């Protein structure tokens, strides 16, 4: 199988380039894209990419695989390879550090902006803050995000304004805390989002939904935030 690999080492290359590598796939086995990358790294140790858990939990190996953002560790080659060619590029819209490794600072800055932690002004109870099963259920489909950045880096609104638009990943987490019955900072959180960029830059094209490796729906969460903002201002 032919693998076309995005290569860029800022210390030696003036511009990025695509490198073609021939990989011999073992018979009768459907490898994951990450396995293919390891096979390439055995041939050429200079190839750089991030990986850690290799089972879709850590979110380290988000990359653009044959035109779609995915996690290399949970993407079977058979699912993405057509015409015997695999094209691997770094996540779009983020500065490349080297090869498939991108600088995720702006992504984390947006995440930090939404205050991704529980805020509760009430006195601490003796044991823990209780939540009814119904209230806990509201967090399903929100808390599972692994911050792989596949969604935000596939979003044109995030490409054009990564410093102002929170992006689908950050907004999914923003709603995770807005929806939490134990959080008391709802008004403050909404104040921080009620400008023309942070939430409303979402044009609802749903790239985030189609690429999320965890099957989450940031567009729906953004819709809920928008409804909360509308309800308190109209």
């Amino acid at each position: 199988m032919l693998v076309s690999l995005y290569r860029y080492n800022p210390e030696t290359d003036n511009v990025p380039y695509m490198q073609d590598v021939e990989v011999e796939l073992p018979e009768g086995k459907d490898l994951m894209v990450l396995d293919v990358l390891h096979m390439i790294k055995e041939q050429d140790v200079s190839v750089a990419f991030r990986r850690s858990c290799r089972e879709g939990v850590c979110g380290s190996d988000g990359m653009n695989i044959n035109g779609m953002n995915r996690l290399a560790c949970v993407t079977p080659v058979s699912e993405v390879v057509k015409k015997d060619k695999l094209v691997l590029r770094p996540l779009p819209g983020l500065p490349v550090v080297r090869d498939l490794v991108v600088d995720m600072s702006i992504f984390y800055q947006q995440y930090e902006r939404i205050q991704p932690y529980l805020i509760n002004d009430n006195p601490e109870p003796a044991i823990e803050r209780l939540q009814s099963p119904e209230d806990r259920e509201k967090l399903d489909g929100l808390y599972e995000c692994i911050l792989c950045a596949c969604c935000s880096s596939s979003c044109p609104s995030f490409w054009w304004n990564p410093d102002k638009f929170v992006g689908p990943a950050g907004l999914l987490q923003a709603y995770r805390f807005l929806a939490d019955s134990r959080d008391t900072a709802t008004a403050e959180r909404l104040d921080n989002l009620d400008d023309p960029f942070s939430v409303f830059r979402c044009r609802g094209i749903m790239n985030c939904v189609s690429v999320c490796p965890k099957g989450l729906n940031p567009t729906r969460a953004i819709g809920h935030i928008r409804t909360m903002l509308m309800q308190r201002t109209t």
Partner: protein
Amino acid sequence: MVRSVTNLGRTGAYDWLMQRVSAVVLALYTLFLTGFVLGSSDLDYAQWAGLFDQMWMRIFSLLALISLGIHSWVGLWTITTDYIKPTALRFVVQAGCGLIMFVYLVWGVEILWGL
């Protein structure tokens, strides 16, 4: 919170709502005019002038004109802040859009009440 002074309202919610309300007005106006043109056999100047001679039609048309201004301002503001990164150039383009919309509005009023 991202500060902005060039968008329509001061909040994202306001812009979002105004864009949708103006879209509904424009859709109703388009449907009405299409229906009028298709429903009138042998449409002539007298019928057309007669329609716009009525106060409710003038108000409806003015509402559609204002809605067009609001709708296009929100849309073009979004496009310019997406694609034009140099601040001075973006401001000039936005000011140009605002001027054109204002001219269309005044001109529209002139046409509607000058018939």
